[in-house]
């Protein structure tokens, strides 16, 4: 019984939240990694693209809610998602026309794109705040929990509860599906392969008859979908706030890089590495040990490796250590 309690406590406070957070990061990192892989630059505007996509979805959600449409136990936002994706896609393709296309034609080096994406980041940032403001927005409806801690306790009679949120479930499932789809798309379909070819050697892609503009457009549309899905799921789970989305950029980049830039599988792995290291290293094992150890051996202290103050420091330290042993990330990102 005590063992089960320990296990449940560990699941509830470490495994489940870290898995959900990891999937959220992974979905964001997928977008970053895709742009890096195909268009060959690190897109600093991605956090704000996620914010924009979520905002669009929220606006549609509100519209649906106001006319009384809902999805029952699932959040209405899921219904609004396709519309949000469309709007975001339009924004991204538009941005590409206005900004990136020029540099592509000029064959600019990637750092120019990176700095341009900083500019786009500022603009998107402002755009989102103009439209929806800098405040917190909550738009989750439907059932919040698949099973709540209290229900779990009543059900099992354990002392510890295990909570599983709808959004956590959704996020994990979505992340798995999206990666599988993306992997299949890039490696098996004609369009996917042409995208990889384009990213590899643009001149040669041209000589093979690949239409670069189409490749670019498809990439942005996929990125729009990824960003909107990631942002919306995150917003449903936590809440929507433009600044937080901007802040998400760092862990997302960290995830994409640990995993190996340009590798979709890497993005997933990276997301989990970051999430789990944040949660586990700073977790206080006191409670778990109390269940497991006999009374006499119970720890006085918290049995915490490091205080949560150093949460980010720790996850970054882990990241650096990973990179020292695997210099191009876990899944061998792009490198020559």
């Amino acid at each position, binding site marked *: 019984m005590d063992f089960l309690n320990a296990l449940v*406590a560990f699941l*509830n*406070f*470490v495994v*489940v*939240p*870290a898995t959900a*957070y990891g999937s*959220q*990061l992974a979905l964001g990192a997928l977008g970053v990694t895709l742009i890096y892989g195909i268009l060959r630059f690190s897109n600093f505007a991605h956090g704000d693209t996620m914010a924009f996509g979520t905002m669009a979805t929220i606006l549609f959600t509100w519209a649906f809610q106001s006319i009384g449409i809902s999805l029952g136990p699932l959040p209405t936002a899921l219904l609004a998602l396709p519309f949000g994706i469309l709007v975001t896609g339009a924004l991204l393709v538009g941005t590409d026309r206005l900004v990136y296309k020029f540099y592509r034609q000029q064959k600019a080096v990637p750092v120019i794109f990176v700095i341009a994406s900083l500019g786009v980041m500022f603009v998107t940032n402002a755009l989102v*705040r103009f439209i929806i*403001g*800098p*405040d*917190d927005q*909550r738009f989750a409806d439907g059932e*919040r*929990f698949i099973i*709540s*801690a*209290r229900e779990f*306790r009543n059900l099992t009679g354990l002392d510890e*509860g295990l*909570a599983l*949120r709808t959004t956590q479930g959704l996020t994990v499932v979505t992340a798995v599906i999206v990666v599988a789809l993306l992997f299949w798309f890039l490696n098996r379909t004609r369009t996917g392969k042409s995208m990889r070819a384009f990213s590899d050697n643009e001149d040669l892609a041209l000589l093979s008859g690949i239409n670069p503009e189409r490749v670019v457009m498809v990439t942005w549309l996929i990125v729009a979908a990824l960003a909107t899905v990631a942002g919306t799921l*995150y917003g449903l789970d*936590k*809440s929507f*706030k433009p*600044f*937080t989305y901007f*802040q*998400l950029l760092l*862990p997302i980049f960290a995830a994409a890089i640990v995993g190996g830039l340009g590798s979709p599988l890497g993005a997933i792995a990276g997301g989990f590495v970051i*999430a789990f290291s*944040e*949660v586990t290293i*700073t*977790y*206080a*094992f*006191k*409670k*778990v040990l109390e269940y497991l150890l006999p009374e006499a051996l119970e720890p006085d202290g*918290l049995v*915490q490796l490091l*205080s*949560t*103050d150093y*949460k*980010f420091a720790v996850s970054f330290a882990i990241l650096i250590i990973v990179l020292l042993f695997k210099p191009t990330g876990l899944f061998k990102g792009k490198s020559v």
Partner: protein
Amino acid sequence: AAQSNDIKIGISVGFTGPLESLAPPMAMGAEMAMKEVSDSGLLLGGSTVTPVRADSTCIDAGAATSAAERLITSDGVKGIMGAMCSGATGAILSNVAMPNGVVMISPSATSPALSTVEDNGLFFRTAPSDARQGVVMTEIIMDRGFKEVAVTYTNNDYGKGLADSFAAAFEEAGGTVTLVAAHEDGKADYSAEVGALASAGGEVLVVAGYVDQGGSGIIQAALDTGAFDTFVLPDGMVSVALEENFGSDIDGSFGQNPGTDSDGKRIYAEMVGDAYDSTSPFSAESYDAAALIMLAMQAAGSAEPGDYKDHVMDVANAPGEEILPGELAKGLKILAEGGEIDYVGASAVELIGGGESAGNYREMEMKDGKVTTVRFR
């Protein structure tokens, strides 16, 4: 009376950056006070007051000082309502306000370091001191019979100061603090913090943060995992946003925010209506900060900071007639007639030595998803 003219007052808060969502209600609070005074036509014989906004960013002391420099030396403001974060406040104070001799009243900077900073009598704040709140919070928790608490604070001078003073007071009173863990605002995820806090245990969780920042994230994560269901909510957390975000999920949680039974806060809320969120942290304090500047001008009979800086304490504290929000005209009139006032305002202002707010506190509790007042302390 002097000839009427237009007086400019600066509003320097962090419109962009980590606390950007707190800034608009603060600015609007201050602007409402200025409009009230202008409309009354009573300030210094009919002067009007124009607000000038400047972004203090909260992260960039350089931008903050440059903006403040512009407020003072270019726009010619006679006083500044601000700044918002302690960093920007300190930088503006020592590099701009002091050299130019301009009064600054910060509604939100609570850093103890600012108490001792050299200020030539130019700096005041309407945010209450953390030390006092720590004691009040201890009393409230103890009265409810809780002996073991976990504490999380937003990792800045406000949170840290409050957490420190509370932990000291609580342990002195015989309670146990299982863990004091910081959280950063605006971050993506708080599972790690909640995990550690849950493991450390405690009957209730003290959340010394901001309601529309990490504070809500922590509460959400704690509720979701079933780690805690009762929370102690200090001033940064008390807001109608709690009702919107959590409703009855956190029934039984309690806390305190500055307030008196004079109902200043309620009146302020009514005045605001739904123009903006009047319960957003430091919005009421901002109204008060702006009001104090103008009342002090009236008391001094001059809009020059050098003249009115000595009157700020006088108008804020007893003796005198108590002035609530919406009664600025009354206050101006009394002062014009040479009377004395005790400005209470929306946040129960009471300045103590060094220009800090002493503050009375309202004990609140969440009941049926609503913030309800229990009593005043």
